[in-house]
């Protein structure tokens, strides 16, 4: 097994240890870097001038900010949930996609975390939601979903990043031991914390890793529900529904899986990791995406049925979303997140790189429109006719959104450049088991 195992380690390890990395990578990093600059610019402008640069008004106090927040959280949660399930089921797919599914989740939660802070208006006072002995001796209002959100985002960021890092330690040690350049060796060495791979270390490492993977499952469900509670606890007719958490959890999972599929296909193609993320893996991911799209479809139907059962203004509010000023958003969401994924029924589509990229991208787009439809379209009908207004985003908001996409892409590009995207020790383990069985 040794020569094969070494071959695996070499292919995966050579990616971070290569001296040059090609023009496409640099091009992509420059493009996403430009978007990160745009992010910086929009963040500075909203901090200096205030939220007046956004198109928000009363009742649309959230607008783009919460749309994008809810969207990124969906990606983070979907990807995290998927990674955790793979680890717990000891599924073969985990070796191939677990590492970057966790990466996707971590980067998405970083992007998501920007929005609630910046939308406070005075972002430098964000620490007011943290219970600390303030001068005025007033504590945070813990019955507010905003404080739940503070704990949820920080917990998700801390637990995901720790899980990701602890999983990386043995592979960082491999990079340390394979690096030819002394500085690179030292750098990986410091982050590998002196991992020696003793059998005792492995036993504890695996136990702790699996245990935290279990903890991620309830965390994701609570966190996504907390996002949904932000809507459900208000008195807005379209939002004040107990089905809201289910809707966010299910559509968020579809979205997270679709982004994992998208990234998996891109990595497979871009880094030539065809034999580690094989056709069977992508096929299985495709089926999962399709299944989750069908669950989303069920929830869209449920939305309509719930509206039919509701009376008065709640019913009117939902049907206004389907037929009113913002109906386009709703139907775009249906087309992109429900209809286009049906392509994945075809085996040829699941095996095709282009089709997988297309579908992965389209669900991402579709769920974004769904969030837009809920947050903006849902606010159009309220008890007070005086607030029946419309909302459209300004350039500062669009720039903020594009900027977080750039940040996400840049983090992902740096990740594939400097860290092993496929778990090397799991791959060695699998090959050994295949050999001995």
């Amino acid at each position, binding site marked *: 097994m040794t020569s094969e195992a070494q071959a695996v380690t070499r292919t995966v390890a050579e990616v971070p240890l290569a001296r040059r990395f090609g023009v496409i990578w640099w091009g992509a990093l420059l493009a996403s870097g430009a978007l990160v600059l745009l992010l910086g610019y929009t963040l500075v402008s909203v901090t200096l001038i205030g939220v007046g640069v956004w198109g928000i008004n009363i009742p649309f106090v959230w607008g783009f900010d919460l749309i994008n927040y809810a969207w990124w959280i969906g990606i983070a949660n979907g990807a995290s949930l998927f990674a955790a399930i793979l680890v717990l089921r000891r599924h073969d797919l985990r070796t191939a996609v677990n590492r970057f599914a966790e990466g996707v989740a971590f980067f998405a939660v970083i992007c998501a975390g920007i929005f609630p802070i910046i939308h406070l208006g005075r972002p430098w006072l964000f620490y007011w939601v943290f219970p600390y002995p303030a001068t005025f001796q007033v504590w945070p209002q813990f019955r507010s979903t905003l404080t739940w959100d503070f704990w949820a985002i920080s917990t998700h960021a801390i637990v995901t990043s*720790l899980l990701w890092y*602890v999983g990386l330690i043995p592979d960082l040690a491999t990079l340390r031991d394979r690096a030819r350049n002394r500085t690179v060796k030292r750098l990986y060495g410091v982050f590998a*914390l002196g991992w*020696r*791979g003793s059998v005792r270390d492995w036993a504890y490492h*695996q136990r702790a890793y699996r245990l935290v993977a279990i903890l991620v499952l*309830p965390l994701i469900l609570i966190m996504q529900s907390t996002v949904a509670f932000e809507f459900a606890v208000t008195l807005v007719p379209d939002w004040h529904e107990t089905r809201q958490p289910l809707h966010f959890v299910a559509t968020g999972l579809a979205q997270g899986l679709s982004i994992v599929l998208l990234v998996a296909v891109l990595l497979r193609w871009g880094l030539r990791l065809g034999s580690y993320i094989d056709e069977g893996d992508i096929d299985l991911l495709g089926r999962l995406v399709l299944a989750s799209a069908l669950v989303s479809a069920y929830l869209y139907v449920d939305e309509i049925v719930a509206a039919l059962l509701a009376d008065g203004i709640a019913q009117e509010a939902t049907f206004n979303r389907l037929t009113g000023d913002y109906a386009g958003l709703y139907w775009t969401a249906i087309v992109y997140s429900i209809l286009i994924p049906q392509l994945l029924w075809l085996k040829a589509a699941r095996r095709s790189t282009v089709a997988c990229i297309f579908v992965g991208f389209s669900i991402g787009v579709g769920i974004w429109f769904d969030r837009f439809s809920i947050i903006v379209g849902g606010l159009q009908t309220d008890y007070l006719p005086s607030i029946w207004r419309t909302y459209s985003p300004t350039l500062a908001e669009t720039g903020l959104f594009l900027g977080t996409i750039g940040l996400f892409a840049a983090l992902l590009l740096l990740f594939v450049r400097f860290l092993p995207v496929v778990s090397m020790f799991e791959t060695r383990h699998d090959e050994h088991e295949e050999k001995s069985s």
Partner: protein
Amino acid sequence: MTQRPYGIMAEFRTPDSLMDAVRATRRAGFTRIEAFSPFPLPDLADELGIRTGIIPWVAFVAALIGAVIQYGSQYWMNAIDYPLNVGGRPLNSWPTFIPSTLIVAILWAGAATLLGLLVILRLPRLHHPVFSVHSFERVTNDRFFLCIHGEDPLFDGEATRDFLQGLLPQAVREVPACD
């Protein structure tokens, strides 16, 4: 008299030969031994009598502490220290205190487990005697190692070296003490 070495290390090509070597070493009565491998070997961990049962307890106790602190602080801050009446709800409106209690319990459990792991493994420790052994860097790639520690009561330089040589390893090397 020269300083007693950290130990003597044998290198193997496959996990099975490492397993056989560990069994033989334990039969010979050595107790202070350590095995190294490029990936987890649960069977060998069982053979060496490694118990990881403390990990779930760390998580459980940390979760409990986190939950009690979070619920307690919400209750104390919003009901006792600065009673806050929101829409006539009871001061101890427990349903609204539950979401962050659960989340913070998970935060404590997750952080305690992963940071506790580092404490249990005594990491970070960037320098260690075993790193000075020639070819030990292959432990993170494709080689398996068995080390008999110098502190072992049966340890006796040449005899231990001969014993390890008898297990048919790729190589036997001394791990010099360094401090």
